[in-house]
Structures are given as C-alpha cells and as structure tokens.
C-alpha cells in the first residue's frame, strides 16, 4: 500500500477521488444530520421513511436533484449562471487538499497550507456574487451584494486571529501546527494561555467568523428567506441548486476542520494516547453540531447588525489579541530566555 502511494499519478488519483467522495458524502449526510438535529430541537422526528432512520434519504434527494431538468431561465447570463455553483463547490473541495485528517493522512503536506485555504476561501464569495448577478433577479442581486460585504467584513477579523496564532506556531503548515499540540488537551492552542491569555476568545472569534463566512445562521443574510426568498440561488433549481448546497456544507466542514486543526489539536487525542483520524472527525462533527444548534436556536441578524459586530466588536478585539500575543511572546522569551 505504502509503495503504491509513492507513485505520484496513482496517489493523485486516489486522493482526488477520496476528497471528492468525502466532500459529497459529507454534504449529503450533513443535510440528513441537519434535518435530524433540527427535528430533535423542535420536538419532531425528522426523516424516517427512507431506510432505517431515514438514512437513505440523502441518496433519494440526490437522485431527485440530478434527475431534474437543468433549467436556465430567460434573461440570465447563461455562462455566469452555470459556472457560479462550481465556483462555490470547487474551492471548498480544493481546500480539503491540505487538511490533515491524520498524522499521515493529508493529500498534500505543504508549508503554506493555511494560506492556501484562505486563498481558496476567498474564491467562494466570487461564486455567490456571480450567481446573484448572473441570475438577473433583483432579490439575487441584493443578496449577492450582502454576501460580498459580509465576506469582506468577516475575513478581516478571521485573518487577524489566524495571524496571531501563526505568531505562536511559527508555521503555516497545518500538520506541524497539529503536532505542536501533542499530549494532553491543555496543550491545544485554545487552552494555551501562556501563548496568549486571550486564546479562548480568539477561538470564539474564529468560530463566529467561520459562521459568517459560510453564510450560516444567524448570519445567513445572503439567503434570508423572509426577505430575499432564497437569495442568490432564487433562480436555481435541480442540480444547480444542489451544487450550491453541497458547496455550503463543504464550506462548513472546512470551517470546522480549520478550527479543529488550529485550536482543538486536530487528530491529537485529548489524553495523549490513541491519536488518529477518528479524533479529528469527532471534533469536526462536534463543531458542526454546534453550528446546527446555533442555527435552529437563534433568529437572523440584520446586515447592519452583522457589519457592526464585525467592524466595531470583532476587529478591535482581534487586533487587541494580536497585540497581546506579540507582547506575551516577547515577555515570555525575555523571562525564560529564547
């Protein structure tokens, strides 16, 4: 097996297939999970008819979406309209390339992994913008404008938080970052108060920003159904809509994975023994559960409230955190010697 993986083309093929399958499977079953979680929160049962516990429901939904006609309404820009869903999904799948699922389980272990994820995450918003613009629908255009201002506003505190973390880790290699958090759970960066006293706050900022980046409630202003019907995908149906949907869930997985890698020790076990990919998945899905929990509990904010939160609260706090991290590093290295 190991020799096979050494062969470059084969390795490429295996990981490409694996990642796409992982993204698609996650998108499908996170929808199922979301419906089950929502049902549980609302004292309902949720999907139960198709297969045991409704487990085949995503399959049936997928077949339904794929068998639908690809409807391109009159008056849309057909090229932008068709390319937009892919622009949401492909960057999300690409980001999986550098995610270390386990110690030796990453498609590519590159030194600028963190940078690469953020580079691809910025492409995501382009997809929303083009989808909204290309639809030629006023609701979709309003939604696209909202999505862009939201993404711009939330990328800044997120990146500042990440910079303050990178100051501590000295590397952008995600695998290295996980390795630095080896041992008991207090070695995770979220609890490393010696690195920066505000680490838990940094995690919170990162989490809030990733909610906003992935357009999840309570920041789902792009698709605020009571105002904008379905936002940028109002005109989409069938698999065009399905791809947007897959992209949304893939982005959610990326956000949760990144939070796990940066703050929660990635594939490291909280007790120092038995580390492996299972811990990584457990943490990721626990975070995703929290994201769903938030969605089914809170009402939606307004665009103004959202931008105010970013510019007036999150950015100042994350800047202060950056300053404090720098100061802490200097003080610690002065006291204990570099």
């Amino acid at each position, binding site marked *: 097996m190991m020799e096979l993986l050494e062969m470059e083309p084969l390795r490429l093929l295996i990981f490409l297939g694996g990642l796409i399958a992982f993204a698609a499977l996650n998108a499908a079953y996170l929808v199922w999970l979301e419906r089950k979680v*929502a049902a549980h*929160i*609302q*004292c*309902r049962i949720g999907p139960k008819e198709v297969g045991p516990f409704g487990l085949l429901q995503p399959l049936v939904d997928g077949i339904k979406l794929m068998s639908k006609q690809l409807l391109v309404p009159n008056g849309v820009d057909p090229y932008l309209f068709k390319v937009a869903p892919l622009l949401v999904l492909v960057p999300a799948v690409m980001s999986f390339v550098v995610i270390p699922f386990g110690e030796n389980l990453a498609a590519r272990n590159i030194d600028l992994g963190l940078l690469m994820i953020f580079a691809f995450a910025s492409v995501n918003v382009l997809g929303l913008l083009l989808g909204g613009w290309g639809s030629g629908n*006023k*609701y979709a255009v*309003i939604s696209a404008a909202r999505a862009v201002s939201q993404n711009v506003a939330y990328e800044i505190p997120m990146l500042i938080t990440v910079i303050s973390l990178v100051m501590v880790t000295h590397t952008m290699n995600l695998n290295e970052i996980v390795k630095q958090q080896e041992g008991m759970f207090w070695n995770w960066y979220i609890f490393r108060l010696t690195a920066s006293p505000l680490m838990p706050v940094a995690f919170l900022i990162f989490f809030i920003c990733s909610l906003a980046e992935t357009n999840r*409630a*309570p920041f*789902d202003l792009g698709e*605020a*159904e*009571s*105002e904008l*019907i379905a936002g940028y995908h109002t005109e989409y149906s069938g698999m065009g809509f399905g791809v947007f949907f897959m992209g949304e869930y893939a982005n959610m997985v990326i956000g949760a994975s990144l939070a796990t890698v940066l703050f929660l020790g990635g594939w490291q076990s909280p007790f120092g023994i038995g580390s492996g990919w299972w811990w990584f998945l457990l943490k990721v899905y626990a975070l995703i559960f929290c994201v769903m929990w938030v969605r*089914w*509990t*809170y*009402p*939606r*904010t*307004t*665009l*103004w*409230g959202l931008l105010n939160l970013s510019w007036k609260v999150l950015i100042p706090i994350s800047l202060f955190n950056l300053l404090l991290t720098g100061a802490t590093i200097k003080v610690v290295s002065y006291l204990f010697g570099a």
Partner: protein
Amino acid sequence: MNEPDCNPNQETFVINLGPQHPATHGVLRVKLTMDGEYIVHAEPVLGYIHRMHEKMGENRTWAQFLPNTARLDYLGALSYNHGYVQVVERAAGIEVPERAEYIRVITVELNRIASHLLWYGAFVLDLGGFTPLLYAFDDREHVLDLLESVTGARLTFCYFRFGGVYNDIDEPFITGTRAFIKRLRSRLPDYHNLVTKNIIMIKRLKEVGPISAEMCRRYGATGPVLRGSGVCYDVRKNEPYSVYPELDFDIPVYSECDSMARYMVRMDEIDQCLRIIEQALDKLPDGPVMAEKAPKIIKPPVGDYYGAVEAARGTFGIRVVSDGTNTPYRMKLRSPTFSNLSLFGEASRGMLLADALALMGSLDLVIPEIDR
C-alpha cells in the same frame, strides 16, 4: 397613495414583494421602491383574494351569512362570528342566555390564544428563527383540539347562532381547558426565554418600526398595534359587550411604539386570555345555551345597526342596514388589518428592508381579512 419623494439623481428600483413571497403570509403584494436596501416608497396592492363577502351578505339570508364570517380572519374566526351574531341579535331584539354568553367568551378567548400563538411563530419565522414556530404550533394544536371537540371545526368555526351557541360545552372540554391553561402557563416562560430575551430579537425589535399613536389615529389602526403605541383602547373595556364587564382582566399597553411593544402586547394578551377563560369557567352558570324564543327566520326591523368586537387583530366592526326583509340591505365589514396595513406605506418609509419586514410581521396581517 402619496407619491414617492424621489430625488431625480437618486437611483431607485422597484421590487415586487409578493403576491407570492415568504414574508407576506398569503397573497399580499407590496410594491417597494428601493434605494439599495432602503425603502423609498411602499405601496400595498390588494385584491388578490377578494371574495365580495359584503355583497354576498346582501344576497343571502341573515343566517346564511354566518359561515362567511369565519372566512374573513381564519385565524380568529370566532370573534367574527361573535361580532355578527351580536349585531343581528341587537337588531332583532333576541335575548341570549347567560350560559351561552360565557361559552362565547371562553371559546373566543381560546381562539384569540390560538391566533396569537400562530402569530408568535410566524413573526419569529419572519425574523429567521424557525424553532419557536413549531413550539407555538404544538400549543395551538391543543386549542384546536379543544375547539374541535365543541364546535366541530378546527379553523373556520361557525359555532354561534342568533340567540346562543350551537352546542353546549361538556365536562371533558372544561377539564381539558383547565389543563391547557396550566400547560400554557408553564410554557410561556420558555417562550420568553427563547425569544423575548434573545439578544438578536431585542436588537431587531427595540426602537425599530415606530408607529405613533397619532399615526394610528389617522389610519384607524386598532388592536395590539394601537396598544403598542401607548393608547389603552380595547373594545372589551371601552364599549363592553357580552359578559366581559363581569370578568376581571387587564389591557396590556406599551408606550414604546416599536415592534417590541407590539410583540409584548400580544404576549401579555395571551396571559390575560388565560385569566379570562379561568374566571369564565369558574363563573359558568347553568341553563340553556340557546334563547327559547329565537325565531327560525330572522327579519330585523328596519334600521341601521352597528356593533363592534375586539378581534385578535383589532376592532372588528360590522354595520348592517335592514329593510325588514330576510336579507340585509347593506352590510359593511370593518376589518382591523385593513386599517393596520394602510399605515405600512408611511411607517416603512426610509427603513431597511429587513426592518420593514419585521414591522410588517408585527402588524399581524391576515390577507383574506384585508381583502374580504
């Protein structure tokens, strides 16, 4: 409608909110002139579900119009039943037995609770919170079960008759209602913890969508909209009818004039409804539920009659003109949400789209009642 105060250099665009739109709860269409996300001018367009109820009333006998009254505001149908039978009874001089009046009050207040619960769910849904809707529907289901057991219907009730009610209430209904009162009282704190104290809700509702008492007066807005603007006006207290004078209840009034005030008025009203029902059940006298001398064919004497009741959404007024025959000569229905919606154009000017929709949700619109 006022013309939009347009700046020629300002680039505006028009969007049609509805007649199919998730926030308009039916077939209301609002033509919005927008400047970015700001509303320059809003014009409600009605008529998509107009069924000529008034004309129908003039073409059928007095009793035949009864089912129509349930199809105006299908969420609070019993209040409309009540308004109509009351004005006809007054016209024809029919005495209603006291037990029947108590039953009317109990069922009307139960219906008001159901209506407010549905509004609560739908309103939070407008604001993007999905879960409270399901909780509210769970409780509303209990009310509908109770009302079904006595009226036979779950939505479009036609329970009242000229001179009383169609059916006496039984012991299971009374015990069920008492159990429901207990249940809802234990659930209301949950509602407040989940929604009222939620920081996002507070930010979206407090000081958003002001409607002054003066504006309410100009447009004739009534009900929780008016009481959220600091005016204590409730037909049940100001022009008492039925057995309301014998019951002890408060009229919740909030003077903040914002969406939060209207929200709080309705939430407090649920509490007051429970008080009313509890007292009415305690005081429920024995006796017939139908006036013995109620004529089979109603022919009120020639005259012009008006009666009003406090429906879940405001004052429902009904004016009938009788020419002494078995059909009304003229029937005019004054529905509360028609007036409440009319102020939306003025109140929403200059507001953000999201806030305007929160304002619209706080008006508690039921479209078939606006169009009639």
